[in-house]
């Protein structure tokens, strides 16, 4: 494989790969561009790519209409909160399955995953009623709980695959060294699994950030995250492409940037142990 690759060949590869990448990215790029257009130029025919009258007005309008940062903070709190809570619950579970496996461990994992197959719409009313009874409607806590439970199987699974790569001998060494179970997990396992935990964290923040069924239906205003913010911008009175694009950009950009920066860790985590 280490054979020399001609520059010509590399140039062709580069051109092809960039074409594909730009094609995939184009819808996002177009949305971002549109968000800087005056409304009339947003629907101009033929479309204007760059030579339009750049404006920030859409962002100003959008922020005037809705207090963006309130939604943003709710998104952050809910996404991070549910992920961290999930990790706290999942780390011991993943430890158990990875280091003290039983005959049923694989089945248990599959079962956990299968809890995700329940169609959310089908159980909305039961959950809604439970939440109402517990006073959790429109609370961040409530959403954190739901999203934690939603993503718990994924978190457990990802951690499990990471932990399995850690040699059991190291934990035994800690035990020989006099560490209690808690110290073993706290001082040895967790720091060793930091890369894995980080990518689990990232992936689940993304999943939680983008969750748009429970967040829409269980919040009103106090706990409303960005999905709710977006839901207030598809207007019944006119397709405000530019404003919609601005709102969309504001909703996706934080997580997009996070995703870009953590791309390496994410990719490792996404493989769910499929690649050794």
């Amino acid at each position, binding site marked *: 494989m280490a054979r020399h690759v001609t520059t010509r060949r590399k140039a062709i590869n580069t051109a092809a790969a960039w074409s594909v990448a730009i094609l995939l990215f184009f819808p996002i790029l177009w949305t971002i561009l549109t968000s800087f257009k005056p409304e*009339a130029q947003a629907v101009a025919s033929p479309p204007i790519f760059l030579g339009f009258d750049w404006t920030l007005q859409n962002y100003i309008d959008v922020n005037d209409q809705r207090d963006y940062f309130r939604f943003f903070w709710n998104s952050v709190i809910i996404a991070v909160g549910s992920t961290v809570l999930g990790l706290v619950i999942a780390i011991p579970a993943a430890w158990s399955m990875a280091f003290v496996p039983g005959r049923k461990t694989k089945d248990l994992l599959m079962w956990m995953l299968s809890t995700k197959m329940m169609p959310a719409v089908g159980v909305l009313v039961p959950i809604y009623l439970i939440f109402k009874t517990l006073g959790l*409607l429109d609370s961040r806590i409530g959403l954190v709980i739901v999203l934690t439970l939603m993503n718990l199987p994924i978190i457990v699974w990802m951690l499990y695959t990471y932990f399995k790569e850690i040699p059991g001998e190291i934990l035994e060494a800690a035990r020989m060294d006099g560490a209690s179970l808690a110290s073993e997990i706290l001082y040895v396992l967790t720091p060793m699994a930091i890369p894995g935990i980080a990518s689990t964290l990232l992936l689940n923040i993304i999943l939680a950030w983008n969750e748009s069924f429970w967040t829409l239906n269980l919040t*009103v205003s106090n706990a*409303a995250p960005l999905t709710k913010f977006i839901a*207030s911008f598809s207007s*019944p*009175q*006119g397709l405000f492409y530019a404003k919609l694009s601005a709102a969309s950009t504001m909703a996706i950009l934080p997580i997009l940037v996070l995703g870009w920066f953590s791309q390496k860790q994410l990719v490792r985590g996404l493989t769910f142990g499929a690649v050794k």
Partner: protein
Amino acid sequence: ETTITVATVNNGDMIRMQGLMDDFYAKHPDIKVEWVTLEENVLRQNVTTDIATNGGQYDVLTIGTYEVPIWGKQGWLASLNDLPADYDVDDLLPAIRGGLTVDGNLMASPFYGESSMVMYRTDLMEAAGLTMPDAPTWADIEAAAAAMTNKDGEVYGICLRGKAGWGENMAFLTAMSNSFGARWFDEAWKPQFDSPEWKATLDTYLRLMTEYGPPGASNNGFNENLTLFQQGKCGMWIDATVAASFVTGADSTVADKVGFALAPDNGLGKRGNWLWAWSLAIPASSTKQDAAKTFINWATNKDYLALVASKEGWANVPPGTRTSLYANPEYAAIPFAKMTIDSINSADPNAPTVQPVPYVGVQFVAIPEFQGLGTSVGQEFSAALAGQKTADEALAAAQALVTDEMTAAGYIQ
């Protein structure tokens, strides 16, 4: 200090109100308003779930003429009979007020009201050598559509709603069917899609749309058609009266070339226009009813109209709720004002059809099942528009599914 949560749709008038809150806070410093602004469908889901499960998360709801009679009957809404005198309930347009009154109690206060009408391009009509009567028939419409269509030039004679949904294509088609003498149900709640009147309605609709309509119409709703019209791609558009201010507004390329006419009829005594009002109501479960009433009074009072007029001009005043507005000479000067009030006045939610019906509602049937039914039937008709079904197949399917649902729901014994 009391905080009330107000749920609204995200249309222009509501957004404008949020910008005018300084006035409210100045007058009522002890009340704070928390806005929940949502797209119509999401709003309806959230609000309905809340009110039906007694969730109590909202103090003021923005709801339509469809919900008011149903919810009012369930006792879910607080009566607004005791609003202060300056509210002047008698100033409300009778058709609108009628739609919001249940058993003699006003259950919601209209924020703005609308009907539907024909908007057309005066320049194209002129070029075609035609004139649009103020009260056209469907034949007039078809002739005008044929004359204005120039598909190569991307001008389509008529744009109508095609996107499936009880509030989308079915709002239009139900209103249209009224002028053809059709109805959803007879007095025994038997569905009527097998009637020749419905057949005529659908045939006409499909003929208009396939021959003179824009491509992809089966996904066009209000928004899509508005954009098309503003870009000068539609010769005519029959839709909500509120659209008038948009097609003549700044974003429109044809602002100065738009004429208005009443929705068409077939000489049967009913026109094909609807009646709708976005209204503010208070859930019976709200614990802050006084503050909520104070807010509603402020938002739907005559003074509010004056406030908007003073800040944003008469053209931006929420229309269609008060007689006094149309008596105001400044407002009457607006080109579409008269056509709007005439349209509203020509619809009667309590007697919507040529033949008698057991239900209330012009472009809907005010029963809880209608959202589902309307959407399913709307899907059939939009499939017919997309060319995936014939009109007869769509009607037969509609008849069958509505019969099933109504039987299951116990309307048909």
